[in-house]
């Protein structure tokens, strides 16, 4: 039953026209909810959460640093999955997603690096340290840049998407190996403070704002992907009747 529903969604959302109407109904809700959640989490974290007994107030950077880092990582994983679907099954919507997911993910990787550096200065006394996580995030940013650059250079959009998809698949394998190989070269970064399962070492008064801002940023990422995917769908289907009708009516 569940499988059947999933399969139906997959086929329906695989149709560009269905995707367009679906996103038209979702987006007016998704964007405000995402912004509201993000702002709630950040205000809670910045103003109401208690100060850290070791780091004082500089730890409050965590409320944007961790959501951005996890978002950048998940975005690249999503690129890899979309790449697999685009290369193997040649599904059109996966190709659209390859183009829509990359830009915000690259922005999040850059945010993760900048906030990590600004957090590192008061905590470790240096902006940059070649430890496993910061180095992996830098490589991740490079690989986002590679995917975007490849798509910009190839003229045919379908070919560009499939080339980027193959690169993203190779990149996902690379991310995992880079993480372990840089860890092997010595690390000074503190251990992971938030775990989905098992005991987490973070105070609940800090954990909830962190989870809320993480949820907010992920939802905003989803909204961004939908907006970008809509314009890409519209451009690709510009010769179809339904897009012609939409443009004529001029409604959103």
């Amino acid at each position, binding site marked *: 039953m569940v499988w059947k529903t999933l399969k139906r969604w997959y086929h329906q959302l695989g149709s560009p026209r269905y995707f367009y109407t679906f996103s038209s109904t979702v987006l007016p809700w998704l964007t405000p909810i995402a912004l509201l959640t993000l702002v709630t989490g950040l205000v809670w974290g910045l103003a109401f959460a208690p100060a850290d007994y070791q780091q004082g107030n500089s730890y409050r950077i965590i409320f944007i640093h961790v959501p951005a880092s996890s978002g950048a990582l998940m975005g690249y994983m999503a690129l890899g999955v979309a790449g697999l679907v685009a*290369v193997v099954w040649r599904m059109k919507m996966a190709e659209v997603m390859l183009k829509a997911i990359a830009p915000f993910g690259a922005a999040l990787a850059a945010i993760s690096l900048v906030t990590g550096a600004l957090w590192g200065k008061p905590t470790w006394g240096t902006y940059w340290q070649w430890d496993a996580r910061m180095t992996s995030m830098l*490589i991740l940013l*490079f*690989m986002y*840049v*590679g995917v975007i*650059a*490849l798509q910009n*250079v*190839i003229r*045919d959009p379908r*070919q560009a998407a*499939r*080339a980027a998809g*193959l*690169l993203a*698949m*190779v*990149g996902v*394998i*690379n991310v995992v*190996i*880079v993480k372990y*190989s*840089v860890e*092997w*070269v010595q690390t000074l970064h503190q251990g992971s403070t938030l775990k989905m399962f098992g005991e987490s070492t973070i105070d609940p008064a800090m954990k909830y704002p962190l989870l809320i801002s993480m949820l907010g940023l992920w939802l905003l990422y989803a909204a961004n992907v939908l907006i970008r995917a809509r314009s890409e769908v519209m451009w690709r289907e510009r010769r179809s009747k339904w897009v012609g009708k939409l443009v004529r009516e001029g409604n959103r």
Partner: protein
Amino acid sequence: MSAFRAALGRELLVLWRSPAEIINPLFFFVMVISLFPLAISPKPEVLVVVAPGVLWVAALLAVMLSLDGLFRRDQESGVLDLLLTSPVMAVVPVGAKLLGHWLLTGLPLVLISPVLAHMLQLPDAVLGTVMLSLLLGTPALTIIGAIGAALTVGLNRGGILLAVLVLPLYIPVLIFGAGAVSAAVEGGPVNGILAVLGALLALTISLGPLAVAAGLKISSGN
């Protein structure tokens, strides 16, 4: 198997007839390495510290630059389309081509590396590790780079884009390759690191040619 041997023979013959493509990466390797003692310091105690990294970065760049035209000639002459539409799976000729390319561009780097390592003041006991690490590493570099070359084959600004695509993918090989040499210089255990390098090579040999063949298919538009 005969298809593999035929493709390998063809690749070796083509490269043999344009010796510049074999010699240029080698000269690049030697020249880049000879810049470092001039730029940093000719003092042996300084050079020993940077030598593993210098050797490996230079080898990595030499391999990458040699790949820029890997599939271009085949594409211009139409051989590539034949290769992709032939009844044999595309992986076979692609694998043969990569092997041929490595034999004539990667292997010479490995063979000349002890001389350069000696010039960078590395102790003689380390030279074996230098060669072994490059022997395991350069084929992986060739295969990974070929994925990028396959994706950029039809583009006229391929060179710099190839670097942007491929350099992030080279990082694990670089870390363990240079790490093995550094460990040997410090007198630590080397076998474990070389084993990881071997594992990376096994991974790229098993999956790489498939990715290269898929990339060529995408680039040729079928």
